[in-house]
């Protein structure tokens, strides 16, 4: 069956319908990872977006449920060149086609994803509509596309109740703003007892549990929208508890300290972005998924200094907070998908908690 991808700027791509039979409007973003489509689909940071995979052959190794990064798939739509008609992997439990159906995600295949990516690169991220309706009204849809903006996505993706991953080491409070499971797993694997809190949990509740460290997770959407969360983070900042933040968490901590964020033209989504650790000069290849970035121009060094920078475009990739046991990164040390090179940051966080304990 035919499907159409209609972009805000009037471009229309005709392809084959995949996944669930529904029409969606969403923000269209592209991801350049060559593997890890299931991790992408289950990353809550994609809530409110439809993802284009630039790698043309998707679904080759099927679906391995244990690789899911959260309880369900989040993107509004999935846009690919080609889905493999058979999955081949010893762990595969099903096909990507079935997975999309089961998760209720509509999609489109057989389109020139490279041409689409070039449009997004040149004109910037824009909204789009995936539909199976051949008689769509282009002008009508473009009006809707222009008016659309994803809202309330953190609330939609966070857990409803707190839960604990038992461990015998440090006690970490993980603030779930739409967290990928591997953040908790990465800490848990290092012995931490991880308590995962819903995004709207107050700082008081978190702090009253006397955590050794607080982890602010990744998540979807425009960081500035989360004014209430930012207010809570201010209190966490003031607490002296060591804090490590990833992605949205990093942006929220910046906003809590009066540092601004802005939207990139088309974001960073993929597994090949080089980031320089300003302290050591070393460059790491990182997993990234963000459309917004912290503005580190005119940064007040008495509040924070840039700790990591993107080698390609010089944008901020992390901050170190002056006089505090807080460091935050824009990228994803938990990987999944993507390079495992930055796993050492979790160890750094553990060291920080060790220091925190000693000082206590």
């Amino acid at each position: 069956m035919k499907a159409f991808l209609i972009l805000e700027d009037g471009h229309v791509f005709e392809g084959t319908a995949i996944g669930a039979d529904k029409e969606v409007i969403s923000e269209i973003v592209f991801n350049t990872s060559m593997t890890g489509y299931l991790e992408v689909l289950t990353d809550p940071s994609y809530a409110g977006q439809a993802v284009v995979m630039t790698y043309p052959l998707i679904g080759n190794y099927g679906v391995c449920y244990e690789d899911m990064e959260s309880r369900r798939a989040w993107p509004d739509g999935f846009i690919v060149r080609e889905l493999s008609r058979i999955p081949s992997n010893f762990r595969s439990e099903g096909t990507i086609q079935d997975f999309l159906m089961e998760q209720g995600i509509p999609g489109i295949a057989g389109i020139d994803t490279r041409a689409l990516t070039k449009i997004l690169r040149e004109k910037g991220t824009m909204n789009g509509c995936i539909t199976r309706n051949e008689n769509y009204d282009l002008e009508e849809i473009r009006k809707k596309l222009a008016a659309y903006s994803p809202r309330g996505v953190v609330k939609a993706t966070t857990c409803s109740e707190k839960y604990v991953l038992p461990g015998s080491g440090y006690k970490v409070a993980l603030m779930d703003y739409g967290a990928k499971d591997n953040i908790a797993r990465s800490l848990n694997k290092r012995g931490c007892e991880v308590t995962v809190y819903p995004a709207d949990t107050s700082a008081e509740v978190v702090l009253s549990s006397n955590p050794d460290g607080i982890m602010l997770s990744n998540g979807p959407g425009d960081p500035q929208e989360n004014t209430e969360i930012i207010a809570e983070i201010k209190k966490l900042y003031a607490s002296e508890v060591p804090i490590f933040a990833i992605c949205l968490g990093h942006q929220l901590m910046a906003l809590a300290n009066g540092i601004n964020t802005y939207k990139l033209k088309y974001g960073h989504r993929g597994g090949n972005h080089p980031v320089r650790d300003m302290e050591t000069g070393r460059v790491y290849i990182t997993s990234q998924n963000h459309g917004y970035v912290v503005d580190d121009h005119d940064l007040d060094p008495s509040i924070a200094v840039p700790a990591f920078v993107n080698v390609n475009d010089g944008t901020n990739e992390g901050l170190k907070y002056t006089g505090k046991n807080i460091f935050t990164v824009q990228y994803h040390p938990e990987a999944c998908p993507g390079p495992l090179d930055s796993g050492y940051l979790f160890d750094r966080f553990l060291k920080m908690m060790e220091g925190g304990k000693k000082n206590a």
Partner: protein
Amino acid sequence: MPKDTSIKKVLMIGSGPIVIGQAAEFDYAGTQACRSLKEEGIEVVLVNSNPATIMTDKDIADHVYIEPLTVPVLESIIEKERPDGLLATIGGQAGLNLGMELAESGFLEAHGCRLIGTTTETIFKAEDRQAFKETMEKIGEPVAASLVVNNVPDGLEFSHQIGYPVVLRPAYTLGGSGGGIAHNDEELEEILQNGLRLSRVGEVLVERCISGWKEIEYEVMRDGAGNVITVCNMENIDPVGVHTGDSIVVAPSQTLGDKEYQMLRTSAMNIITELGITGGCNCQFALKPDSFEYCVIEVNPRVSRSSALASKATGYPIAKVAAKIALGYTLDEIPNAITKKTYASFEPMLDYCVVKIPRLPFDKFISAKRTLTTQMKATGEVMAIANNFEAGLMKAIRSLEQHVDSLIVKDYEGKTDEDLMEMLHVVDDRRIYLIAECIRRGFSYETIHDLTMIDIWFIDKIAVLVEMENRLKREPLTKELLAEAKRLEFPDCVIARLMGKTEEEIKHFRYDHGITAAFKMVDTCAAEFDAATPYYYSVYGSENEVQETSGRKKVLVLGSGPIRIGQGIEFDFCSVHCTWAFEEEGYETIIVNNNPETVSTDFDIADKLYFEPLTPEDVESIVNLEHPDGAVVQFGGQTAIKLTESLMKMGVPILGTKAEDVDAAEDRELFDKILEECCIPRPAGHTVFTCEEAIKAANDLGYPVLVRPSYVLGGQGMQIAISDADITEFIGIINRIAQEHPILVDKYMMGKEIEVDAICDGEEILIPGIMEHIERAGIHSGDSISVYPARTISDKIKKVIEEYTRRLARALHVKGMINIQFIACGDEVYVIEVNPRSSRTVPYISKVTGIPIVRLAAKIICGHTIRELGYEPGLQPEADYIAIKMPVFSFEKLRGADIGLGPEMKSTGECLGIAKTFNEALYKAFLGAGINLPKSKKMIITVKDSDKPEIVDIARRFAAVGYEIYATRSTAKYLNEHGVEAIKVNKLEQPSPNLLDLILDHQNQIDLIIDTPSQGAVKSHDGFLIRRHAIETGVNVLTAIDTAEALVTSLENREEKLSLVDIAAISSRG
């Protein structure tokens, strides 16, 4: 980290002659590294014995030595040039081994030179089997259970302990030489014995067999600051057990999930970090298909064939970056040459799929075993880029130029399902076609997978292609069907064949419905950044993103496709120089080629690079987009020449010599007419079509006669016949190969073979020099030792040759290059072959005369004359030194191939010996070819009767330099009767001790065999076995009497200290 300013002059070691396992990829890497160093203001000294390379051009390096790659020669160069750095990781295994020897002996340190890039310690840890194993154990990276042995009993014991099958890998050898899989004691003894002999250090690794696991490779880069990135990963479709050089490879991996991908990526990064490599490195893994278990198979701490493939597959110039790292730069300081926005510390992301298929030489070596093992056999490879795997496979198949344009082959007609099942057990180069046939017959994926261990994902893709074949056979032609067939890259001719239509009909239907190829860019970043580098591939069903450029005149340069015997790296040299010359003339240059190993497919050689099959249809798509003002076909070997007619039909003017004149040189009757008009004699001959005609012609001419198909390369199918029976056999063989052209039967003339490459501007000619072959006529010119300047012919004959060349060039209206082969018989000169195009000897003769022939030819094509270009026409004055081109063979890699030389070319490469005297040049040439004699001073002579009179003097001279001579009965008798002492040995079928015992005997080692095979069909089975055994045990074998004479001459005049000639200092004398 900024550049290390203490490095000002760097010596780079090339990889030497092209052999199986070490081909054009090192010319590509070396050239790129040289240019990268020169960009940084470094003075580059280059040494490589291979004159056909681009890296040995004076434009590429500051000082060029085309000298034998031995430690003493390198020491002399270092003493003379005083470099402060040595880059040894660019010249393949050969270069690495030499660099190691120079460093280990302390010579480098004593001369103020150091290895730059990777250190000796690192190389040792990566290359020494035991050290590598210990290093891997230290960092917890799994390797297959293994033991290094240096004798057979230890090997047996360990194999019993871990159980058969076991894999044997000799240390420090090329392309896995001497390795293999042993399933029992007998096989183990055979392979192990051989491997121990071939290993530089007499060590062989005996290893748990992990064949059937997935074979995955990662190309990794690391800088001195410890930053690490992976450039690319690749998956071998053929599981572990087939050398990666002989496997069909796809990039990126297709059947790995992110967990497996990242697991192996991390492992590769840990390995390069622990080894402390600064530069590029290749890590090969075996991944168990049903778990996360993996093993590290091998690490190459240098650029390699895989790194060339990875560079071309991603656009990431590994050798260039490795050279910069060697100078001290870090990855984040080196700009990405493609995007110019990002840096080398960035991992390429592909938004397409790359398929590589090896080019195997079994069309040349009919008797060779086709089985693929851990020992590489391919001479070259092709690569295709597409946005789906099926399309990539289809494009790669037709790029091979093996008369196959789809998965449909005729080999399986009349075979039963049981036969096919049996054949699936055998791993050879035809497996992909066999799998397609099995799918056609309804075999299940599981059956095919169980027998081949090939991942079902790939089997399914082959099934997609088979299903399309069936649809094309059954369904009517519709836009949708055709669009889908083109998306899968079915060529029009195959679609036409399957649908029972003509190719023209399909093409018109396609054009009428707007189904045309679109071109996409290779940009390293999956379109994330705007890229400027014009490196393109075609796809169907997508938007074209390549703009037709206009302004400058545009020339299309057609490359030469995969490296194969008869069409080697020489033609890439020509294509590249032609491109540069056209650029100088103000043209916009466009290269089309499909060989990932070459310099011509580097993205900054031409203004635009189309990485595409070289078939008329594929080229037409490019022509339709670019509308070039002309095409040059005379530099790309037969591959390009074959496209002439099609290009003309597309309306593309052929620049230089006209197509009809090229035809005239190939068409017997037209050519005879021209010779007659020019009053030039040629050996009598006839053009025939049938066997009966051939026999009649042969009897007419009188035996011996030369039989060959017209329009061939490297003398393919050419044979000397001495009887009617031979004719019948040869015609049968010729007709097995698709034969649209007539067969030529010529009188065979025994004489001196002379070769000339000349340039003609339509009026006047320029001959840089006359080359003379050491071997008399009958041995393919590519397999002959060639001497410049010709020494044994009179000035009178030289004048005749010059005159004949002039007449022929004019008569054929040559504009550009012409290659002519003559035979001088007494005072008479005959023309045996004329090729109005570039030849194999062009790079050699350009370098040794200092005359840039290709450049001049290209400029003549653009309208200049020889005089305008500053040259005096005619035969140029001779150089005051001798330059000898020596063929190099790869027989030890090809089990079962007959090594006897004849009219069909068998060599894979060449090296040069250059010196003031003939004897020194000859010695250098032999040395460069790896014939480093004498060692034990024991030799075997067994020659055919007609050679016996001539062998006496040669044998006497070998005896005089100290050789002990063994000979078979009749040869021994003849020698003894003529006063040369020879020890008689039994023939093979006679009781021990016989010839074979002598060859295989370690204590009493033979270092040379002279065995001249009898000509004609009555081939001695004995001789074949002797030659094979000798080759497989690493003994030098000469099969032509003239070569033997040359060798003994060189041994008589062996000098301890060789002189050096800086090629870059040679300037033309014209």
